[in-house]
């Protein structure tokens, strides 16, 4: 494994992913706010949660990029399309399994089945994250395709 290349392009891909998601929020395409969702696990204070969540998201992205890198190493080569293919799988997992499972993990997220409580008040994402807006699946998919594309295009296997 090319550690230097992973560290650099894993980080760059995560920054691109984060930027793309923030841009889609600003464009009012989705209300999925990964930094807030991650940070609010640890603190209810919005601004602090967003700052902490951004850091966590960067670290998460880096860690997740290891899976991409492992696949590239197994194939013996990287590439734009290979990266995007993994991104597609990654996004599908996030939308179909990751987001709907959040209410079971997140201590401040309401549950679809019994609604909000005094402690759990954050709106759950629902299937495919559709509670956060009808374009949420598309934006998440595109962001992850971008993530995989950057990593695939620039990661050097050797």
């Amino acid at each position, binding site marked *: 494994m090319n550690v230097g290349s992973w560290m650099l392009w894993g980080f760059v891909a995560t920054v691109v992913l984060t930027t793309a998601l923030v841009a889609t929020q*600003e464009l009012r395409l989705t*209300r999925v*706010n990964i930094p*807030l969702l991650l940070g609010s696990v640890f603190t209810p204070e919005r601004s*602090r949660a967003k700052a902490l969540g951004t850091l966590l998201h960067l670290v998460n992205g880096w860690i997740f990029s290891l899976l991409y890198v492992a696949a590239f190493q197994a194939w013996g080569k990287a590439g734009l399309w290979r990266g995007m293919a993994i991104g597609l799988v990654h996004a599908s997992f996030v939308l179909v399994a990751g987001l709907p499972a959040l209410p079971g993990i997140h201590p401040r997220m309401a549950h*679809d089945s019994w609604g909000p409580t005094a402690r759990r008040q*954050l*709106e759950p994402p629902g299937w495919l994250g559709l509670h956060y807006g009808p374009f949420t699946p598309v934006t998440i998919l595109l962001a992850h395709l971008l993530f995989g594309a950057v990593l695939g295009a620039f990661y050097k296997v050797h």
Partner: protein
Amino acid sequence: MTWTQPPIQDLALIGDCRSAALVDRRGDVVWLCWPRFDSDALFAALVDADRRGHWCLRPAPEDGWRVERRYLPDTNVLQTRFIREDAEVVLTDCMTVAGEDDQRRLLLPEHELLRHVECVRGEVPIEHALVLAPAFGRKKARVHAHPTLGLRCEAPAGAFLFRGEVPLSQTATPGAFAARFTLRAGESRRFSLTYSAQAPSVLTPLGATSDDAIRRTVRWWRTWAAVCIYRGPYRDAVIRSALALKLLCYAPSGAIVAAATSSLPERVGGSLNWDYRYCWIRDAAFTCRVLYDLGYADEAEAFIEWLLHITRLSQPRLQVMFDVFGNPSPRERELEGACGYRDSRPVRLGNGAVRQRQMDLHGELLDAVYAHCRRGGELDRDTEQLLADLGNYVARSWRLPDRGIWELRGPPRPYTHSRVLCWTALDRLIELHQERHIRRVKLDLPALFRARDEIRRTVLEEGYDQRTDSYVEYLGGRDPDAALLLLPWYAFEPADSPRIRGTFRRVVAELSAPHGLFFRNPTLRRMGDGGFVACGFWAAELLADGGGPLPLAHAWFEQLLHCRNDVGLMSEELDPATGDAIGNFPQAYSHVGLISVALALEARARLERGRPTPAAVAEEAAP
């Protein structure tokens, strides 16, 4: 029964220092803009009864109830009490707010309108109707009903989430929901509407959590109100006006919007309908002084900072108005198909006056900065240079005709009030220099002195009519103008000078409207203008400042207090025939006027008793 728009004086304001809603005496929220004061409205039935949204929660049937309203003391939490011989229902409405400590401790909605209905006596059917109409009803409401999470309405600007302790059923109209339920003595129900722009919503679990949110909101407003240092005889009126002003202050920037609404008409059925959800530089000097004199230095400083920030963007010319972040207000456009408030069309969004030249703005700004510096404020070098540039512009350009304080859309004229404000700009700039608030940039003092004196000479010669013994609307003109009551306020001439007394007499004789108010000028009077509330306060302030005996000033002021509605709020004007409120509501300028007179009366009373005023003490104590 056909739904009718309420009289303007039946409205009460709730808000969260970012956005506002209006509730009428029937328990109907008829106006709500989220996330900002100037955002598209979710509820706009106030200006379009046919198709726009509203949220009604009241005992049924609608008739047969005596309604009493009040704000919980020293708060912007509204309580409407519906009383009948055998029953009583209390409706509490607020937009929730929280202090920094609570925001650190709790995950709170970005915006929330909370309603709590409680039956005190008897057994009462409650009628509940919610019509969601995003973007003034121009966008189709896509509403998803979830059994445990509530109703979610997706709009281009974000998501609205409704939750209630009684389920609503969809009606045949898209976006409309209704329910009817019965409350018995001691029972209550809570309803919450939240808005989220860019993040997952925070859902209110209602019950005790909502009660806590109301308590938190009450505490927040009371903590703010407790800062007020005014202790005079009109404390209740002053606090109510200060709370209205605070609510209209956009917290993230410090800007204060002129009113919470757009297109409430200056003449019912007419076309004088403007969007006032923007910030006018014109209101700067008055607003700044009253905030300081009430003890709200933080708000005053934030307001000055905002003023200086926006001024930098367009100086040395100044724009008339801005949005809450200092961007030029949007181009004026008409809301297609809206029937307006009681057929007052068109409904306008944005404000066309933004492109006018108004030569009084520099004086307002420099007077506000002067008040800021006199109370301990400091200027950096860039600001000193900015003020110097503004002064140089005024010295060069004071002769330019303009649209004046009343923003008349006819030909520009050399309005006397605007020339006096040009004099004010140069006078305050020179004072700032002489008092060493401006010390790092070089002023062309001889040119400034020369221009200031020339303006004064011109106003005294051409802005004064010997035959009528009064100042006149514009140089060389003959008509009176109620804005000339402000000349002593800017220290152009003492309130007890013969010329000012003559002007006051003429304005009273020719422009008086009922209730101690004035028409603004003869032209606007002919156009059917109402009695302008702020002008009434200017007259009272002129009397309080020495233009007349103190008892007369008190009497005038007390007469003006009747212009307030049952919860102490004022519009821009009163209809001279009916006494009904007209124009946008509530009007910040009217409330600033009320506070300013109360402070002036207190100052005069203390002066006559030989004691310093709280403002003078604060000024003396300032570094």
